[in-house]
């Protein structure tokens, strides 16, 4: 199975007057796994369905390598897809479900049987092949859906929230399994998800969507360290980043009665300062009072009120303060994120 390079060019989709996807440009390398991340209604699934050939783009182009495919019927695109509901055919056994795409290609019976067995073994569902979808667990249905998508050795694998219907425990396990399988097979893959942890854990690169537009495409690490906009900054990372609205003046950010030193020069004016809870500590000089303490296992999330400005600080359980205690919040100056008034990153 050899992945292809996938390219989206100025891809747009309108439903009546609603713009679902707006002028999307994206290139996915051969064998790469790119996650489409965003809240529901942001256009990520619409984009996926255009790649699959279910939706016709309103304008723009889709290329698989150098072949333009956006006018082709799904069957001529050679994509495999796993749906959120798995969409197994309830009136067919798992064997027939997985064999379905091969039968449509009119492959000889023996080859169909052999390939179904091989794929089922790869996914650990070989003993269940004569059962019906309703007779197996959610995790097994999910594997069967993945087997059906992979059995025809597609050029592109599309995963639409494949894990969201699984129990939390199996989900983390399935994440790793899908990723390993994808790397072994080298198939170019798009994963649609609204779960930032899933996107960061599985993807080579993450594309963040909001209201039909692509905000940032970057590696998980880059996305976390240098979010391009306040939306990305809020969406990626848990617990979420503190984002303060205020004004930049010479060398300082002013928010309420608080002043924060800036690591880089930015033009003066209104804007946002962001800092992740783990980049704050309680041995600093900004005086405040503890309002809430939430236990997070090894660490605790402390909400501190600094004269009307609230900051969330992640501390070790050992350093956990009492509610009402007076503390001094400190900022690691080189770890702050600066955004202008429209939410675009301006530094550092």
């Amino acid at each position, binding site marked *: 199975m050899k992945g292809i390079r996938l390219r989206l060019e100025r891809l747009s989709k309108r439903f009546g007057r609603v713009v679902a996807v707006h002028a999307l440009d994206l290139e996915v390398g051969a064998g790469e796994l790119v996650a489409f991340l965003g809240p529901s209604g942001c256009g990520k699934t619409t984009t996926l369905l255009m790649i699959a050939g*279910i939706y016709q783009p309103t304008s723009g182009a889709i290329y698989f390598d150098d072949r333009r495919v956006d006018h082709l019927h799904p069957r001529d695109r050679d994509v495999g*897809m796993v749906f959120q509901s798995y*969409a197994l*055919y309830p009136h067919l056994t798992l064997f027939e479900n997985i064999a379905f*795409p091969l039968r449509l290609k009119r492959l000889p019976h023996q080859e169909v049987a052999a390939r179904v067995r091989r794929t089922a073994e790869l996914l650990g569902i070989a003993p269940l092949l004569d059962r019906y979808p309703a007779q197996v667990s959610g995790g097994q249905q999910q594997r069967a859906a993945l087997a059906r998508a992979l059995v025809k050795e597609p050029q592109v694998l599309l995963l639409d929230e494949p894990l969201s219907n699984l129990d939390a425990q199996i989900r983390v396990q399935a994440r790793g399994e899908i990723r390993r399988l994808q790397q072994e097979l080298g198939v170019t893959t798009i994963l649609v998800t609204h779960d930032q942890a899933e996107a960061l854990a599985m993807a080579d690169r993450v594309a963040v969507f909001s209201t039909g537009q692509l905000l940032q495409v970057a590696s998980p690490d880059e996305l976390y360290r240098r979010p391009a906009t306040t939306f990305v900054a809020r969406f990626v990372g848990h617990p979420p980043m503190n984002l303060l609205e205020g004004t930049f003046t010479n060398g300082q950010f002013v928010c309420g009665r608080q002043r924060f030193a800036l690591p880089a020069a930015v033009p003066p004016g209104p804007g946002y300062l962001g800092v992740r809870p783990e980049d704050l500590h309680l041995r600093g000089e900004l005086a405040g009072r503890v309002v809430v303490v939430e236990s997070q296992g090894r660490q605790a999330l402390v909400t501190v009120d600094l004269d009307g400005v609230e900051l969330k600080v992640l501390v070790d359980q050992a350093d956990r303060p009492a509610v009402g205690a007076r503390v001094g919040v400190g900022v690691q100056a080189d770890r702050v994120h600066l955004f202008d008034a429209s939410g675009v990153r301006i530094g550092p």
Partner: protein
Amino acid sequence: MPLLPPRWRLLVAVLAVLTLPIGAGVLWLLLTGWFDQVHGLLPVGGWSPENWRFLWQPVGGRPPLRVPLLNSLIFATVVAALEVVVASLAAYAISRMAFPGRRAFLGLVLVLHAFPAVSLLIAIFYILRLLGLFDTLAGVILVKVALELPLGIWLMKGFFDYLSWEIEMAALVDGMSRWGVFWRIALPLVRPGLLALGTFALLSAWGEFILPFTLIVSSQRWTMAMYMQSFLSEAFTDFGMMAAVGLTYAAPVLVLFVLGQRYLLNIYAGGVKG
């Protein structure tokens, strides 16, 4: 068997009283069919196989039984088949495809369903005459199908609406054509609906009286309902034979109902639960 709880006993008693007249009617039919005479619900005189002689010989200028029986059979099966085919195609289009006038069409279908068909009879009579379909089985079949279609379309739409879009998308991605998705994925999944509608249409057509009575003249094209009615229209009514005919007419329905009641319950339960 454990006794019913008190509240249920009362309910069963009330239902039993309400059902009594119907039960008595059925009992009368059974007795009258088999005995010489029945006074009230008491058989008088002897056992009378004479009531059943219509089974093997034509009675009083009427065609032999096999003629109306075969006509009814053709009428009911063709109506049911046409209705299932047309209703599922129309319902699928309405449920799945966006086309101009879709909402208006749906509303119109509903209005047609509510429209009392009897008020159309005279117009239908003229139209069939114009088409040369008056006094033919084909003409009555067309009319019956047309009148029953609105219900069928709405019923099947409910079943198709309940189908997941994602399953159809999966079939497209797996390489199936749009038509193939309808034929090999959607239709098998609404099988309970098809069976329910088919059974319902069959029963309704089997019991149909007013349309053939109005639109068919020749006794060679009588249906069972008309055959039975012909026993009433004489100066002397042979109730014994009429009851026997009625029992014969009802027998296939009883068989079908026993076989198909599981699917029929689907209709009466709202029709959306596939």
